[in-house]
């Protein structure tokens, strides 16, 4: 299925929390003002309902996204008010992909874990939580995965300040 097909199928099945979709298209030649729409196709999902959405995407016969290829987060800008949490789903059976995005507020960055649905999410969520300070509610093992346990700060946030020293070793 192409993205349009996936999107229609999701709507048809009443996917939980689906807010909008980015459907890239070429500009309309008849309309001079129309610039088209760029970017990669994705669907935006309400973070509160991400588990239900993922569950449907995995279990639906026609979608069958059995693999979570990646889970990452991003901090768009210093003055932005949200983080993105980005899921890349892949179906080997039907040979199609889907990008799912969630927007969570920087003031209270938390989202439910999907490691109960897709176990591959476990380590990715640990990485996101140490790099961005996002809390994944209900994560079975929320330790740091890359950074030392006593690390201060979240390195991939745009407003991150580099440490001057760590355990007596100068960082400058």
């Amino acid at each position, binding site marked *: 299925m192409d993205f349009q097909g996936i999107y229609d199928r999701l709507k048809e099945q009443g996917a939980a929390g689906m807010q909008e979709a980015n459907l890239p298209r070429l500009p309309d030649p008849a309309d001079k003002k129309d610039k088209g729409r760029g970017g990669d196709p994705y669907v935006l999902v309400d973070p509160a309902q991400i588990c239900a959405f993922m569950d449907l995407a995995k279990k639906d016969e026609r979608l069958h996204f059995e693999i979570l290829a990646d889970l990452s987060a991003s901090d768009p800008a210093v003055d932005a008010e949200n983080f993105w949490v980005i899921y890349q789903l892949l179906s080997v059976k039907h040979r199609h992909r889907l990008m799912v995005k969630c927007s969570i507020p920087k003031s209270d960055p938390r989202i439910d874990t999907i490691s109960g649905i897709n176990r591959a999410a476990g380590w990715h969520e640990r990485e996101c939580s140490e790099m961005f300070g996002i809390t994944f509610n209900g994560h079975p093992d929320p330790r740091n995965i890359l950074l030392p346990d006593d690390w201060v700060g979240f390195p991939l946030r745009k407003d991150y300040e580099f440490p001057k020293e*760590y355990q007596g070793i100068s960082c400058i």
Partner: protein
Amino acid sequence: MPILENAFEENLLTTKVDWLLNWAKLNSVWPMTFGLACCAIEMMAVGAAHHDLDRFGAGAFRATPRQADLMIVAGTVNFKMAERIKRLYDQMPHPKYVIAMGACATGGGPYFKFGYTVVKGVDRVVPVDVYIAGCPPRPEALLEGLMALQRKIRATAVIRKPAITV
């Protein structure tokens, strides 16, 4: 030693204690087996047949710090690793030497500016004898570094302070 047995007449050999000790030390600098990043690939190339580190008596990579004389820090040292490197260094018996191989181990290398967990030079953790430039250094550079270390060992003196240093 059956080959050498009776090959020479009874003889006397004179030498200097310092010279003998240094000769033994510098021809058997056994490195410890560990590599941290891409530089380790070059180190492995040096250990293999083409460049043959064994010519210098330094090809016996030991799997434990307790049998090693030389620590080749081949790669990027981050803070999590620095703690382990320090502990391994402390476990090595004297005399022990450290080679900082490559830009990362020498001073942070490509991660100098934005590597938030990279130690900006392994010399902030353990004392370094020889630095090797390059990213990664060519195998010949590591051999040159090893020979520099051997020159350094040759100039040390246990019995008497040397008149001249290198």
